[in-house]
């Protein structure tokens, strides 16, 4: 009798011992890194399309620039499961009619809202900051706004892949009394479409 009881107890113990790890594994699969304090590192790469230059009276004109390329990196911190704050660093190059290159390196502070449906995330955000601009021998330091939308597939809890579309709105206002006439004031619009990879950690 005691032997049977011992075998039964051993069977139960071994059975339970096998179930607990499964339960723990199931818990691990459900665990989501996107909680307050978590971070997301995003890398972007893709083309950028010069859209228009706009004078401050509202009139639009062609940029004269070619399609160029852009790459960037963003680092965000989650405040909760759907909202994150952070910063972004981008670089872009486009060419003028005589093949001179317009370089721009914006640094922005960003706020992103990230609703999710199943395994997909749709981050929407707004960045604001400054852009370092260089063209031939001229350099400039211009305010920039950068709204962005994206669509990502959350392959694992650590990696997501998808696309982003951003609009670069760069301001170059000039005021009387300076060496540059106020008539040269412009707002520039660029649109990019990039492939993105996000690492959550």
């Amino acid at each position, binding site marked *: 009798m005691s032997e049977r009881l011992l075998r039964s107890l051993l069977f139960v113990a071994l059975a339970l011992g096998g179930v607990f790890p499964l339960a723990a594994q199931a818990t691990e699969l459900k665990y989501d890194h996107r909680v307050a304090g978590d971070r997301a590192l995003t890398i972007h790469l893709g083309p950028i399309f010069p859209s228009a230059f706009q004078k401050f009276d509202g009139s639009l004109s062609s940029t004269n620039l070619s399609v160029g390329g852009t790459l960037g990196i963003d680092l965000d911190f989650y405040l909760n499961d759907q909202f994150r704050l952070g910063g972004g660093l981008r670089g872009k190059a486009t060419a003028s009619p005589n093949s001179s290159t317009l370089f721009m390196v914006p640094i922005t502070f960003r706020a992103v809202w990230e609703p999710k449906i199943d395994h997909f995330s749709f981050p929407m955000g707004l960045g604001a900051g400054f852009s370092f601009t260089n063209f031939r021998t001229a*350099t400039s330091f211009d305010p920039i706004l950068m709204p962005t939308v994206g669509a990502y597939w959350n392959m694992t809890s650590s990696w997501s892949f998808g696309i982003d579309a951003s609009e670069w709105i760069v301001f170059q206002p000039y005021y009387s009394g300076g060496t540059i006439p106020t008539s040269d004031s412009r707002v520039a619009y660029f649109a990019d479409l990039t492939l993105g990879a996000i690492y959550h950690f």
Partner: protein
Amino acid sequence: MNLRILPFLAALSLLSASCTSGTEGIFASIEREQKIVSLGGLSKTATITSMAESGGKYYATGGKALFSRSTTGTSWDKSTVGGSSEVVSVGAFGSNVFAVAGGKLWTSADGATWSDITPSGLTAYSLVPIIDDDGFSIPELALVTDASGDKKTVYHVTANTVPSEAINLATSVAMPSLSAEVTSIAKVGTVYYLASASFLWHVSAADWGSATTTKVSAAPNKEYAGLLAVTGTPTRLFLTTRDGSLYAWDTPSGTAASFTALRSDLEVDSGHKTWLHTMLYNAPNDSVWIATGAAESSTGKEGNGYVEWNGSSLLTTPNTTANNYTSSVLPTSALGTLFRGSSLEYFAGTVAHGLWKWNSTDKTWSQQ
């Protein structure tokens, strides 16, 4: 770092203006940039009626695109001005080149990016270089403006900004039916002499901007073509008239002229009149080149090249020691312009027969 501060920093960044080095906005300069196309040589049928030199480059135009090349190079580039492929005339001084295109006055420091400096409410018609008695263009230009076909307002261009000083030829005397358009300007000392078909004008330095102009009296009663001042003993102001005559006024001064008739046969043959007004002082030859006009034909492309006044006689075959002038197309071409570069390079722009350069060493002509 407290992340809550980030939105405030983002908002603060938008309050700042741009900081840009240079004298023009980056986006604005890109917007104005014109594409330059490399051509190699100019077309052998190009029409060139205006030339200038600035920043180590020659500029040439004839009513269509603007051509340019390095003064030491051989290959010409082609571009537009302000988006217009109808560049009427070009001028330059210092590091600035100026052009009239699309009814506007433009300026550029590099021949690629142009800024509109047209006086408000006016249509730019042509640029007229101002030649002093040393035979060089000086750092001044005249802009003839057009208001309803009236070309009586002439601006004094002395910088790469919108010109403000002007004279109005209509305020002096009633204009006859002949054109008021100023086509030639010579500067003697501090006085400007302007030639239009109908009148010769005297403008002092102080007259620019005061709308005061004075007609030169006792000038030949003819249609005027060109003016050229040449320093010497004495300094002479040459005048050509459209009937093919050459006059000279020794020691020009004031408003009462004293012209002496030198020649009446600038027309090499009938039908070719010196209505194309350009004269040029040729230093190596110590002579005056006078461009002759075009026959009044349907094509208007034929003419008689240029003639040369050596101080005592007129040479219908220009004076060269080993020249190829007569074997070129120049003797039968109408000349749109004669131009002297800073390195004693001489150019003849023709109507429909291209641009030619004269070599001052062997005195031969070559087509550009």
